[in-house]
């Protein structure tokens, strides 16, 4: 087994840009250990995406035409297995997305492959592939290896590997998709609710509260503080799931990315990967958390280890 296989991801005719990050990770491994990099496009019409994944470092683009436009785990599982059987890669890379949560591990179990998810660093130590991911709510990192595995499946965390923009000159080939009856069926998409009173994606200054806010009655004082500071109030998921603030105020993977934000104040938010997906890019992050080891401090520019209620109360004296 040798070589790296990247599985491209797309939805509704749009390539997931994380695919280019995944290709970048493959290209980086190829630099230290020369080996072919192939990108598989599993789609009804793979030609649509060939140009977009033809990035520097890619040697082969494998088109696999399947009879579905939408993600169907049975089809994707069997198809990736067929491509692995055809090319024999040592490493199969996916973006760590909701689609791959739904099948990458199954590909590994069925193929007898090694597997690690949400990986943010990969390297070789001698011949051994070593993947790094986080545990304990990001407080510890772990190095994993895969002794005895001919093929290893890795899903890669987003916004870590810098996408390759330089175009490449890959050969284009095709592999036949196996015939599989999908046991899932797509009925439709439901668009996110846009009826919120503000669009936090437009906000330049944000103050977000997390589970540390404790209860619904406590929200009001932070709303008042945000207003007094001229900040927009946002939240982490548990606050929205509890209905304490509308879903439209939720920052993160399944909420919004605060693309315009310049200053983000996170109060009582631990800094889960899914929350950070929506705000990690903000130039100035200020974290207030009573736990000095909370992972939010790892991306913050300023930190206060303390009680969000006390700090909020004192801040009111300054606005």
């Amino acid at each position, binding site marked *: 087994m040798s070589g790296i296989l990247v599985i491209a991801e797309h939805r509704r005719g749009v390539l997931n840009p994380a695919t280019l990050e995944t290709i970048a990770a493959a290209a980086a491994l190829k630099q230290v250990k020369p080996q072919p990099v192939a990108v598989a496009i599993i789609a009804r019409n793979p030609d649509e995406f060939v140009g977009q994944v033809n990035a520097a470092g890619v040697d082969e683009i494998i088109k696999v035409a399947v009879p579905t436009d939408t993600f169907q785990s049975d089809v994707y599982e069997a198809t990736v297995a067929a491509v692995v059987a055809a090319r024999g890669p040592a490493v199969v890379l996916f973006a760590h997305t909701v689609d791959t*949560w739904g099948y990458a591990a199954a590909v590994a*179990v069925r193929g007898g492959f090694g597997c690690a998810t949400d990986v943010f660093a990969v390297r070789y130590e001698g011949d051994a592939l070593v993947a790094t991911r986080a545990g304990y709510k990001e407080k510890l990192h*772990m190095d994993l290896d*895969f002794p005895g595995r001919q093929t290893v499946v890795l899903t890669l965390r987003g916004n870590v590997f810098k996408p390759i923009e330089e175009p490449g000159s890959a050969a284009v080939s095709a592999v036949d998709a196996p015939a599989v009856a999908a046991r899932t069926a797509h009925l439709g998409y439901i668009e*996110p609710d846009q009826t919120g009173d503000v669009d936090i994606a437009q906000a330049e200054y944000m103050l977000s509260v997390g589970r540390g806010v404790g209860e619904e009655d406590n929200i009001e004082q932070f709303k008042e503080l945000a207003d007094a500071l001229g900040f927009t109030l946002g939240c982490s*998921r548990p606050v929205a*799931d509890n209905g304490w603030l509308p879903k439209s105020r939720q920052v993160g993977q399944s909420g919004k990315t605060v693309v315009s934000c310049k200053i983000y104040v996170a109060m009582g938010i631990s800094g889960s990967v899914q929350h950070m997906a929506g705000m990690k890019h903000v130039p100035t992050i200020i974290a207030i958390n009573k736990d000095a080891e909370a992972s939010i401090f790892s991306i913050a520019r300023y930190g206060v280890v303390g009680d969000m209620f006390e700090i909020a109360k004192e*801040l009111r004296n300054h*606005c």
Partner: protein
Amino acid sequence: MKILVPVKQVAVLDEDFELRDDGLDADPDFIDHESNEWDDYSYEAALQIMEAHGGVEVVPMTVGPEDAEESLRRCLAKGGERAIRVWDDALTGAGPATVAKLIAAVARREGADMVFAGTLSADHSYAMTGICVAAELGWPHVAVVTALEYQPGAATATVHRELEAGLVEKMTVECPAVLTIQLGINQPRYASLRGVKQAKEKPVDELSPADLGVSGEELAASASFRLRRMFKPARGQAELIEGTAAEQAARLASIIKELRGAA
């Protein structure tokens, strides 16, 4: 008709923690345990089906040491009549694929019709276990489910799958199936005092991998990775603001003012 709900007792690190001497994990003195948040939602989803229809049995199970029984009692306090705990000391440190092999073996032994797992566990967040169970069983599966319509015995269930950025996909899945349940799918109930008391009397079957017909070799072979080491990550360059709350707030206010002035 039976719904199997695998739950996990997750590890939570204390605010000050140290690593074990072998560097393979945190020192257990600094680890607390709690029930995995996602499992409150998967268990609630199963209970709601049980309550809405006759003839549905909900069985919580875990793969974990004696301490982990607590998470099963926590489930039983809300409903369900019995639970299953699988353990052998050789499973210490077992990863998600190994745990999944045992959950699948229980599903077979129990003749489960559906498996509702949590989308991920709050400690190591592999988001693998449920999907590995499905692969072991050869069942259809959907990950990150935020709505569920299921009539016991029906050939398909209709689910919402939560995608990125608030987008949701509506789909059907053939049953039996493994679903991984996401936060927010329902409002998990709290156990009543009476429920907590009653749960103490409910049976928890203890099974070993051997009881399930899974050999030590099979378990060893199922590990999808080997842990080399754990380590504290290099922290970012967050400038920590010290002092009393009043001093800290004053400093924050001036930082914000300055940055906004510059912007």
